[in-house]
C-alpha cells in the first residue's frame, strides 16, 4: 500500500539553526500538507500546498517557515532559525484529487535545544 514517508525520524538542533524536514508524498496525490503536534496536544495545521504554491497557511506559519516541492516528488518544510517552541512532531500529509482522506507520514520529531 502506498505511504507517505518522512525523513529524518528524529532531528535534534540547536536554537537558531536551520532545519529541513523532508517528505515524499504518495505519488499521484495533488494536495500536500504540513501539520505539527506539540507533545500531548492536538494536531495543528501549518500549511497546505497545491499546484506548486501555498494554498493556505496558519498563523503559526510565519516568515521563519517555508515549503518547497523541489523536484516533483519531495516536499520539504524549512525552518530558518529554530526556536525552543518549535520542538514538536511534524507530520506531512497528502491527498488525492477530490474529497478524500489525507494520509499522514510517520512524522519527524524535532527537538530544539
Amino acid at each position, binding site marked *: 500500500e502506498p505511504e507517505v514517508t518522512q525523513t529524518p525520524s528524529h532531528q535534534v538542533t540547536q536554537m537558531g539553526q536551520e532545519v529541513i524536514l523532508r517528505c515524499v508524498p504518495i505519488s499521484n496525490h495533488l494536495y500536500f500538507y504540513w501539520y505539527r503536534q506539540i507533545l500531548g496536544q*492536538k494536531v495543528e495545521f501549518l500549511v497546505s500546498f497545491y499546484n506548486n504554491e501555498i494554498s493556505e497557511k496558519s498563523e503559526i506559519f510565519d516568515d521563519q517557515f517555508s515549503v518547497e516541492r523541489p523536484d516533483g516528488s519531495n516536499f520539504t518544510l524549512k525552518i530558518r532559525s529554530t526556536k525552543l517552541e518549535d520542538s514538536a512532531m511534524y507530520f506531512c500529509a497528502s491527498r488525492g484529487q477530490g474529497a478524500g482522506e*489525507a494520509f*499522514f507520514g510517520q512524522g519527524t520529531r524535532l527537538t530544539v535545544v
Partner: protein
Amino acid sequence: QQPVQSPQAVILREGEDAVINCSSSKALYSVHWYRQKHGEAPVFLMILLKGGEQKGHEKISASFNEKKQQSSLYLTASQLSYSGTYFCGTAINRGNEKLTFGTGTRLTIIP
C-alpha cells in the same frame, strides 16, 4: 475555531461500546476521524461529507448531522487494539480541505 470533542477520555472494558462526539460552530464540508497511538502518526478511520457520502473502514461507523454540525464516531464491541486518542478533523471548504483538529478523546480499553 477548533471543533469540540467529548468526552475527553473514556475507559472501556473489552467488548463494550463507546460514542465519541465532535461539534463545530462553523458550517462544515467534511469531518474526518483519525486514531493515533502514542508516538505514531494519525491513522485515517472515516470521512463524512456534506450531502451524506461516507468512506472508511468497514468496522467503523459514524454519523454527520449537517444541521447541527455534529459528528459521532461509534465504536462497538471494542477490542484492545482500539486504544488510542481519537481526533476529529473538520474542513469547511471543498478543494483544499485543510483539517482543523479537535483536542482528542483518549480511549483506553482494558481486558
